[in-house]
Protein backbone atom coordinates (compact mmCIF):
# COMPACT_ATOMS: atom_id res chain seq x y z
CA UNK A 1 0.00 0.00 0.00
CA UNK A 2 1.40 3.39 -0.94
CA UNK A 3 1.92 5.94 1.83
CA UNK A 4 1.16 9.32 0.35
CA UNK A 5 -0.64 11.02 3.22
CA UNK A 6 1.37 13.52 5.24
CA UNK A 7 -0.16 15.23 8.24
CA UNK A 8 1.08 18.22 10.27
CA UNK A 9 2.17 18.03 13.89
CA UNK A 10 -0.69 20.16 15.24
CA UNK A 11 -3.32 18.11 13.43
CA UNK A 12 -1.90 14.87 14.83
CA UNK A 13 -1.82 16.31 18.35
CA UNK A 14 -5.46 17.37 17.96
CA UNK A 15 -6.54 13.94 16.78
CA UNK A 16 -4.72 12.05 19.53
CA UNK A 17 -6.00 14.43 22.20
CA UNK A 18 -9.61 14.04 21.08
CA UNK A 19 -9.59 10.25 21.01
CA UNK A 20 -8.39 10.13 24.62
CA UNK A 21 -10.29 13.11 26.05
CA UNK A 22 -13.59 11.96 24.53
CA UNK A 23 -13.60 9.20 27.15
CA UNK A 24 -15.00 11.86 29.48
CA UNK A 25 -18.31 11.50 27.56
CA UNK A 26 -18.29 7.71 27.73
CA UNK A 27 -18.38 5.28 30.63
CA UNK A 28 -14.86 5.97 31.88
CA UNK A 29 -15.99 8.36 34.70
CA UNK A 30 -18.47 5.71 35.86
CA UNK A 31 -15.91 2.88 35.89
CA UNK A 32 -13.25 4.82 37.77
CA UNK A 33 -15.80 6.22 40.24
CA UNK A 34 -17.00 2.69 41.02
CA UNK A 35 -13.52 1.34 41.67
CA UNK A 36 -11.72 4.18 43.42
CA UNK A 37 -14.56 6.36 44.76
CA UNK A 38 -13.25 9.81 45.86
CA UNK A 39 -9.82 9.21 44.31
CA UNK A 40 -11.18 8.69 40.79
CA UNK A 41 -9.50 11.87 39.55
CA UNK A 42 -6.07 10.36 40.32
CA UNK A 43 -6.55 7.58 37.80
CA UNK A 44 -6.01 9.59 34.60
CA UNK A 45 -2.91 11.15 36.18
CA UNK A 46 -1.34 7.79 37.06
CA UNK A 47 -2.43 6.19 33.77
CA UNK A 48 -1.15 9.22 31.84
CA UNK A 49 2.21 9.13 33.65
CA UNK A 50 2.64 5.40 32.89
CA UNK A 51 1.61 6.03 29.27
CA UNK A 52 4.12 8.84 28.95
CA UNK A 53 6.96 6.66 30.27
CA UNK A 54 6.03 3.75 27.98
CA UNK A 55 5.67 6.12 25.03
CA UNK A 56 9.09 7.71 25.59
CA UNK A 57 10.73 4.28 25.78
CA UNK A 58 8.94 3.14 22.61
CA UNK A 59 9.87 6.37 20.82
CA UNK A 60 13.51 6.03 21.83
CA UNK A 61 13.68 2.42 20.63
CA UNK A 62 11.86 3.16 17.38
CA UNK A 63 14.04 6.12 16.45
CA UNK A 64 17.23 4.32 17.41
CA UNK A 65 16.63 0.92 15.85
CA UNK A 66 13.78 1.35 13.37
CA UNK A 67 13.82 4.92 12.05
CA UNK A 68 10.79 5.87 9.93
CA UNK A 69 9.21 2.42 10.28
CA UNK A 70 5.75 1.74 11.64
CA UNK A 71 4.74 -1.15 13.87
CA UNK A 72 3.68 -3.36 10.93
CA UNK A 73 7.04 -2.99 9.23
CA UNK A 74 8.89 -3.69 12.49
CA UNK A 75 6.78 -6.79 13.07
CA UNK A 76 7.25 -8.03 9.51
CA UNK A 77 10.99 -7.61 9.80
CA UNK A 78 11.10 -9.33 13.19
CA UNK A 79 8.53 -12.12 12.99
CA UNK A 80 7.77 -12.49 9.29
CA UNK A 81 4.47 -12.04 7.50
CA UNK A 82 2.30 -14.89 8.95
CA UNK A 83 2.88 -13.93 12.61
CA UNK A 84 2.48 -10.24 11.75
CA UNK A 85 -0.85 -11.10 10.17
CA UNK A 86 -1.91 -12.72 13.45
CA UNK A 87 -0.87 -9.65 15.49
CA UNK A 88 -2.62 -7.32 13.07
CA UNK A 89 -5.82 -9.35 13.25
CA UNK A 90 -5.79 -8.93 17.04
CA UNK A 91 -5.38 -5.15 16.72
CA UNK A 92 -8.03 -4.93 13.97
CA UNK A 93 -10.41 -6.95 16.15
CA UNK A 94 -9.76 -4.57 19.03
CA UNK A 95 -10.44 -1.54 16.84
CA UNK A 96 -13.67 -3.07 15.49
CA UNK A 97 -14.98 -3.98 18.95
CA UNK A 98 -13.93 -0.60 20.30
CA UNK A 99 -15.75 1.23 17.48
CA UNK A 100 -18.86 -0.89 18.03
CA UNK A 101 -18.83 -0.17 21.76
CA UNK A 102 -18.30 3.58 21.33
CA UNK A 103 -21.00 3.72 18.67
CA UNK A 104 -23.54 2.00 20.92
CA UNK A 105 -22.70 4.17 23.93
CA UNK A 106 -23.00 7.41 21.98
CA UNK A 107 -26.18 6.23 20.26
CA UNK A 108 -27.78 5.45 23.60
CA UNK A 109 -26.50 8.79 24.88
CA UNK A 110 -28.25 10.67 22.07
CA UNK A 111 -31.47 8.65 22.44
CA UNK A 112 -31.64 9.23 26.19
CA UNK A 113 -30.84 12.92 26.04
CA UNK A 114 -32.23 14.50 22.88
CA UNK A 115 -33.99 12.05 20.54
CA UNK A 116 -36.02 9.67 22.72
CA UNK A 117 -38.53 8.72 20.01
CA UNK A 118 -36.06 8.07 17.18
CA UNK A 119 -35.25 4.40 16.42
CA UNK A 120 -31.81 3.27 17.54
CA UNK A 121 -31.19 1.85 14.07
CA UNK A 122 -31.50 5.26 12.45
CA UNK A 123 -29.26 7.10 14.92
CA UNK A 124 -26.64 4.34 14.85
CA UNK A 125 -26.69 4.24 11.04
CA UNK A 126 -26.23 8.02 10.75
CA UNK A 127 -23.38 7.94 13.27
CA UNK A 128 -21.67 5.11 11.48
CA UNK A 129 -22.17 6.62 8.02
CA UNK A 130 -20.59 9.92 9.12
CA UNK A 131 -17.64 8.14 10.75
CA UNK A 132 -17.19 5.88 7.71
CA UNK A 133 -17.16 8.90 5.40
CA UNK A 134 -14.41 10.63 7.41
CA UNK A 135 -12.43 7.38 7.67
CA UNK A 136 -12.83 6.92 3.90
CA UNK A 137 -11.29 10.37 3.37
CA UNK A 138 -8.20 9.02 5.10
CA UNK A 139 -5.90 10.21 7.85
CA UNK A 140 -5.70 13.73 6.46
CA UNK A 141 -9.48 14.12 6.58
CA UNK A 142 -9.63 12.80 10.14
CA UNK A 143 -6.82 15.03 11.36
CA UNK A 144 -8.25 18.16 9.74
CA UNK A 145 -11.63 17.45 11.33
CA UNK A 146 -9.91 16.87 14.67
CA UNK A 147 -7.95 20.12 14.34
CA UNK A 148 -11.22 21.97 13.81
CA UNK A 149 -12.95 20.22 16.73
CA UNK A 150 -10.10 20.40 19.27
CA UNK A 151 -10.63 24.01 20.48
CA UNK A 152 -14.37 23.37 20.80
CA UNK A 153 -13.66 20.26 22.87
CA UNK A 154 -11.15 21.96 25.18
CA UNK A 155 -13.28 25.09 25.67
CA UNK A 156 -16.41 22.93 26.09
CA UNK A 157 -14.94 20.71 28.81
CA UNK A 158 -13.37 23.63 30.68
CA UNK A 159 -16.56 25.72 30.39
CA UNK A 160 -18.60 22.83 31.72
CA UNK A 161 -16.25 22.47 34.68
CA UNK A 162 -16.39 26.18 35.51
CA UNK A 163 -20.12 26.66 34.95
CA UNK A 164 -20.95 24.10 37.62
CA UNK A 165 -18.84 25.99 40.20
CA UNK A 166 -21.91 26.90 42.26
CA UNK A 167 -22.52 23.15 42.86
CA UNK A 168 -19.00 22.27 43.94
CA UNK A 169 -18.55 20.51 47.28
CA UNK A 170 -14.77 20.14 47.78
CA UNK A 171 -15.41 17.92 50.80
CA UNK A 172 -16.71 15.22 48.41
CA UNK A 173 -13.08 14.67 47.40
CA UNK A 174 -12.21 13.31 50.85
CA UNK A 175 -10.99 10.83 52.08
CA UNK A 176 -8.10 11.62 49.79
CA UNK A 177 -7.15 8.07 48.77
CA UNK A 178 -10.70 6.88 48.16
CA UNK A 179 -10.66 3.05 48.11
CA UNK A 180 -6.96 3.06 49.05
CA UNK A 181 -3.65 3.69 47.25
CA UNK A 182 -3.24 0.08 46.10
CA UNK A 183 -6.72 -0.02 44.53
CA UNK A 184 -6.06 3.34 42.83
CA UNK A 185 -2.80 2.06 41.35
CA UNK A 186 -4.30 -1.26 40.24
CA UNK A 187 -7.32 0.41 38.68
CA UNK A 188 -5.13 2.98 36.90
CA UNK A 189 -3.22 0.14 35.25
CA UNK A 190 -6.43 -1.72 34.34
CA UNK A 191 -8.04 1.32 32.72
CA UNK A 192 -4.89 2.52 31.00
CA UNK A 193 -6.26 1.36 27.64
CA UNK A 194 -8.07 4.69 27.23
CA UNK A 195 -4.64 6.07 26.33
CA UNK A 196 -4.34 4.26 23.03
CA UNK A 197 -1.90 6.92 21.83
CA UNK A 198 1.04 4.52 22.01
CA UNK A 199 -0.52 2.06 19.59
CA UNK A 200 -1.83 4.76 17.25
CA UNK A 201 1.45 6.66 17.28
CA UNK A 202 3.29 3.48 16.29
CA UNK A 203 0.90 3.21 13.33
CA UNK A 204 0.63 6.80 12.14
CA UNK A 205 4.11 8.05 12.88
CA UNK A 206 5.44 7.61 9.30
CA UNK A 207 2.57 9.86 8.13
CA UNK A 208 3.81 12.89 10.07
CA UNK A 209 5.22 15.74 8.00
CA UNK A 210 8.13 15.84 10.38
CA UNK A 211 8.68 12.39 11.92
CA UNK A 212 11.29 14.02 14.17
CA UNK A 213 8.37 15.66 16.02
CA UNK A 214 7.17 12.21 17.08
CA UNK A 215 8.19 12.84 20.68
CA UNK A 216 6.47 16.24 20.82
CA UNK A 217 3.25 14.85 19.30
CA UNK A 218 3.06 12.00 21.80
CA UNK A 219 4.04 14.03 24.86
CA UNK A 220 1.72 16.97 24.20
CA UNK A 221 -1.28 14.79 23.35
CA UNK A 222 -0.81 12.61 26.44
CA UNK A 223 -0.35 15.60 28.78
CA UNK A 224 -3.26 17.66 27.38
CA UNK A 225 -5.70 14.73 27.41
CA UNK A 226 -4.62 13.78 30.95
CA UNK A 227 -5.22 17.34 32.15
CA UNK A 228 -8.65 17.49 30.52
CA UNK A 229 -9.75 14.16 31.96
CA UNK A 230 -8.43 15.06 35.41
CA UNK A 231 -10.12 18.48 35.39
CA UNK A 232 -13.40 16.88 34.38
CA UNK A 233 -13.19 14.12 37.01
CA UNK A 234 -12.27 16.52 39.81
CA UNK A 235 -15.25 18.70 38.96
CA UNK A 236 -17.56 15.74 38.50
CA UNK A 237 -16.61 14.44 41.93
CA UNK A 238 -17.09 17.82 43.52
CA UNK A 239 -20.63 18.02 42.08
CA UNK A 240 -21.73 14.42 42.70
CA UNK A 241 -20.88 12.16 45.60
CA UNK A 242 -18.82 9.06 44.71
CA UNK A 243 -21.83 6.73 44.97
CA UNK A 244 -23.88 8.90 42.60
CA UNK A 245 -20.91 9.29 40.25
CA UNK A 246 -20.51 5.51 40.07
CA UNK A 247 -24.08 5.17 38.82
CA UNK A 248 -23.93 7.92 36.20
CA UNK A 249 -24.21 6.56 32.68
CA UNK A 250 -23.56 9.89 30.93
CA UNK A 251 -21.40 11.97 33.23
CA UNK A 252 -21.08 14.96 30.95
CA UNK A 253 -24.81 15.13 30.33
CA UNK A 254 -25.56 15.01 34.03
CA UNK A 255 -23.05 17.78 34.66
CA UNK A 256 -24.51 19.91 31.87
CA UNK A 257 -27.99 19.50 33.36
CA UNK A 258 -26.74 20.95 36.63
CA UNK A 259 -25.71 24.28 35.12
CA UNK A 260 -27.66 27.14 36.64
CA UNK A 261 -26.23 30.63 36.17
CA UNK A 262 -29.51 32.49 36.58
CA UNK A 263 -32.92 32.36 34.94
CA UNK A 264 -31.64 32.69 31.37
CA UNK A 265 -28.59 30.45 31.63
CA UNK A 266 -29.59 27.05 32.85
CA UNK A 267 -29.75 23.46 31.54
CA UNK A 268 -27.24 24.00 28.74
CA UNK A 269 -27.03 20.32 27.81
CA UNK A 270 -28.42 20.99 24.33
CA UNK A 271 -25.23 22.94 23.52
CA UNK A 272 -23.02 20.12 24.68
CA UNK A 273 -24.75 17.57 22.45
CA UNK A 274 -22.81 18.96 19.47
CA UNK A 275 -19.61 18.48 21.41
CA UNK A 276 -20.38 14.83 22.08
CA UNK A 277 -21.42 14.12 18.52
CA UNK A 278 -18.35 15.66 16.86
CA UNK A 279 -15.94 14.08 19.32
CA UNK A 280 -17.67 10.71 18.94
CA UNK A 281 -17.46 10.81 15.17
CA UNK A 282 -13.76 11.66 15.22
CA UNK A 283 -13.08 8.87 17.73
CA UNK A 284 -14.97 6.29 15.70
CA UNK A 285 -13.43 7.49 12.42
CA UNK A 286 -9.93 6.99 13.85
CA UNK A 287 -10.59 3.42 14.94
CA UNK A 288 -12.33 2.60 11.63
CA UNK A 289 -9.40 4.04 9.72
CA UNK A 290 -6.97 2.12 11.96
CA UNK A 291 -8.78 -1.18 11.33
CA UNK A 292 -8.92 -0.67 7.56
CA UNK A 293 -5.39 0.68 7.23
CA UNK A 294 -3.76 -2.05 9.30
CA UNK A 295 -5.70 -4.83 7.61
CA UNK A 296 -4.85 -3.40 4.21
CA UNK A 297 -1.20 -3.08 5.08
CA UNK A 298 -0.93 -6.62 6.48
CA UNK A 299 -2.82 -8.20 3.58
CA UNK A 300 -1.15 -6.11 0.89
CA UNK A 301 -4.16 -4.24 -0.50
CA UNK A 302 -3.33 -1.38 -2.86
CA UNK A 303 -5.90 0.77 -1.06
CA UNK A 304 -7.67 0.21 2.23
CA UNK A 305 -10.59 2.51 1.35
CA UNK A 306 -12.90 -0.07 -0.29
CA UNK A 307 -12.86 -2.05 2.96
CA UNK A 308 -14.23 0.84 5.05
CA UNK A 309 -17.95 0.28 4.20
CA UNK A 310 -17.70 -3.41 5.13
CA UNK A 311 -15.84 -2.72 8.37
CA UNK A 312 -18.36 -0.01 9.28
CA UNK A 313 -21.25 -2.38 8.65
CA UNK A 314 -19.58 -5.02 10.80
CA UNK A 315 -19.10 -2.48 13.64
CA UNK A 316 -22.70 -1.38 13.30
CA UNK A 317 -23.95 -4.97 13.53
CA UNK A 318 -21.75 -5.74 16.54
CA UNK A 319 -22.90 -2.54 18.27
CA UNK A 320 -26.48 -3.83 18.17
CA UNK A 321 -25.56 -7.36 19.20
CA UNK A 322 -26.77 -6.94 22.80
CA UNK A 323 -30.32 -5.74 23.24
CA UNK A 324 -29.73 -3.72 26.42
CA UNK A 325 -27.17 -1.08 27.32
CA UNK A 326 -26.30 -2.68 30.67
CA UNK A 327 -24.82 -5.74 28.97
CA UNK A 328 -22.89 -3.51 26.57
CA UNK A 329 -21.43 -1.55 29.50
CA UNK A 330 -20.54 -4.78 31.34
CA UNK A 331 -18.79 -6.24 28.28
CA UNK A 332 -17.00 -2.95 27.61
CA UNK A 333 -15.81 -2.71 31.21
CA UNK A 334 -14.79 -6.34 31.69
CA UNK A 335 -13.08 -6.99 28.36
CA UNK A 336 -12.28 -3.87 26.31
CA UNK A 337 -11.37 -1.56 29.18
CA UNK A 338 -9.77 -3.92 31.68
CA UNK A 339 -7.91 -6.08 29.13
CA UNK A 340 -7.42 -3.47 26.41
CA UNK A 341 -3.92 -2.71 27.72
CA UNK A 342 -2.72 -6.06 26.38
CA UNK A 343 -3.41 -4.83 22.82
CA UNK A 344 -2.77 -1.13 23.28
CA UNK A 345 0.43 -1.37 25.34
CA UNK A 346 1.77 -4.89 25.71
CA UNK A 347 1.60 -5.83 22.03
CA UNK A 348 3.49 -2.82 20.55
CA UNK A 349 6.07 -2.98 23.34
CA UNK A 350 6.51 -6.73 22.79
CA UNK A 351 6.94 -6.29 19.02
CA UNK A 352 9.47 -3.47 19.39
CA UNK A 353 11.44 -5.19 22.17
CA UNK A 354 11.56 -8.42 20.12
CA UNK A 355 12.82 -6.37 17.18
CA UNK A 356 15.55 -4.81 19.33
CA UNK A 357 16.61 -8.22 20.72
CA UNK A 358 16.71 -9.64 17.19
CA UNK A 359 18.74 -6.64 16.11
CA UNK A 360 21.29 -7.34 18.85
CA UNK A 361 21.37 -11.07 18.10
CA UNK A 362 22.21 -10.24 14.49
CA UNK A 363 25.22 -8.19 15.49
CA UNK A 364 27.14 -9.71 12.59
CA UNK A 365 24.69 -7.97 10.28
CA UNK A 366 24.92 -4.71 12.23
CA UNK A 367 26.74 -3.00 9.38
CA UNK A 368 23.92 -3.91 7.04
CA UNK A 369 21.34 -2.58 9.50
CA UNK A 370 23.28 0.65 9.89
CA UNK A 371 23.45 1.10 6.13
CA UNK A 372 19.71 0.39 5.89
CA UNK A 373 18.85 2.94 8.60
CA UNK A 374 21.10 5.52 6.95
CA UNK A 375 19.30 4.95 3.63
CA UNK A 376 15.93 5.48 5.36
CA UNK A 377 17.07 8.70 7.03
CA UNK A 378 18.39 10.02 3.72
CA UNK A 379 15.13 9.10 1.96
CA UNK A 380 13.03 10.94 4.57
CA UNK A 381 15.31 13.97 4.85
Amino acid at each position, binding site marked *: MKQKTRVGTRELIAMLTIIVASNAFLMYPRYVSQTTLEAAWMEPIISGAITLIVFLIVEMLLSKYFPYMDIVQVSQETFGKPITMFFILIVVGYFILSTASVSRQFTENVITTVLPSTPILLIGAVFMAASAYIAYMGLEGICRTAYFVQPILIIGILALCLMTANWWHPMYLFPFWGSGPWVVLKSSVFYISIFNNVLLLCVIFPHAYHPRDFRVIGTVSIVVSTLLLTAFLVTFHMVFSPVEAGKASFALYQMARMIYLGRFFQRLESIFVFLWVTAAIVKMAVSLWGAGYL*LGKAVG*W*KSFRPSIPSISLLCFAIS*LWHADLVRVITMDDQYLMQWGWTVVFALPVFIILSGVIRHHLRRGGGGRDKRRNKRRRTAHA
Partner: protein
Amino acid sequence: MLKFVFAMIVPLMILIYTISFGLWMRSNHQGFGSAVAYVLGVLSFSASGFIFWRMFT
Protein backbone atom coordinates in the same frame (compact mmCIF):
# COMPACT_ATOMS: atom_id res chain seq x y z
CA MET B 1 -40.46 -9.42 6.96
CA LEU B 2 -40.79 -6.51 4.55
CA LYS B 3 -38.85 -4.31 6.98
CA PHE B 4 -36.09 -6.91 7.07
CA VAL B 5 -35.89 -6.99 3.27
CA PHE B 6 -35.71 -3.19 3.11
CA ALA B 7 -33.10 -3.06 5.87
CA MET B 8 -30.91 -5.55 3.98
CA ILE B 9 -30.65 -3.34 0.87
CA VAL B 10 -27.69 -1.34 2.20
CA PRO B 11 -25.75 -4.42 3.45
CA LEU B 12 -26.35 -6.06 0.06
CA MET B 13 -24.97 -3.01 -1.74
CA ILE B 14 -21.93 -3.03 0.54
CA LEU B 15 -21.46 -6.76 -0.11
CA ILE B 16 -21.52 -6.19 -3.88
CA TYR B 17 -19.05 -3.30 -3.51
CA THR B 18 -16.68 -5.41 -1.38
CA ILE B 19 -16.93 -8.39 -3.75
CA SER B 20 -16.04 -6.13 -6.68
CA PHE B 21 -13.10 -4.85 -4.65
CA GLY B 22 -12.02 -8.48 -4.19
CA LEU B 23 -12.39 -9.13 -7.92
CA TRP B 24 -10.28 -6.06 -8.66
CA MET B 25 -7.59 -7.35 -6.28
CA ARG B 26 -7.77 -10.73 -8.00
CA SER B 27 -7.24 -9.10 -11.38
CA ASN B 28 -4.12 -7.49 -9.86
CA HIS B 29 -2.83 -10.99 -8.97
CA GLN B 30 -3.39 -10.60 -5.24
CA GLY B 31 -5.15 -13.84 -4.38
CA PHE B 32 -4.78 -13.56 -0.62
CA GLY B 33 -5.90 -9.93 -0.59
CA SER B 34 -9.00 -10.75 -2.61
CA ALA B 35 -9.82 -13.71 -0.32
CA VAL B 36 -9.63 -11.45 2.75
CA ALA B 37 -11.92 -8.94 1.01
CA TYR B 38 -14.48 -11.69 0.28
CA VAL B 39 -14.35 -12.94 3.87
CA LEU B 40 -14.81 -9.39 5.20
CA GLY B 41 -17.76 -8.75 2.88
CA VAL B 42 -19.51 -12.01 3.75
CA LEU B 43 -18.84 -11.57 7.48
CA SER B 44 -20.31 -8.08 7.66
CA PHE B 45 -23.29 -9.07 5.49
CA SER B 46 -24.04 -12.14 7.65
CA ALA B 47 -23.65 -10.23 10.93
CA SER B 48 -25.98 -7.44 9.81
CA GLY B 49 -28.43 -10.03 8.43
CA PHE B 50 -28.50 -11.81 11.77
CA ILE B 51 -29.08 -8.57 13.70
CA PHE B 52 -31.81 -7.30 11.36
CA TRP B 53 -33.53 -10.69 11.33
CA ARG B 54 -33.62 -10.63 15.12
CA MET B 55 -34.93 -7.07 15.16
CA PHE B 56 -37.57 -7.24 12.43
CA THR B 57 -38.98 -10.75 12.51
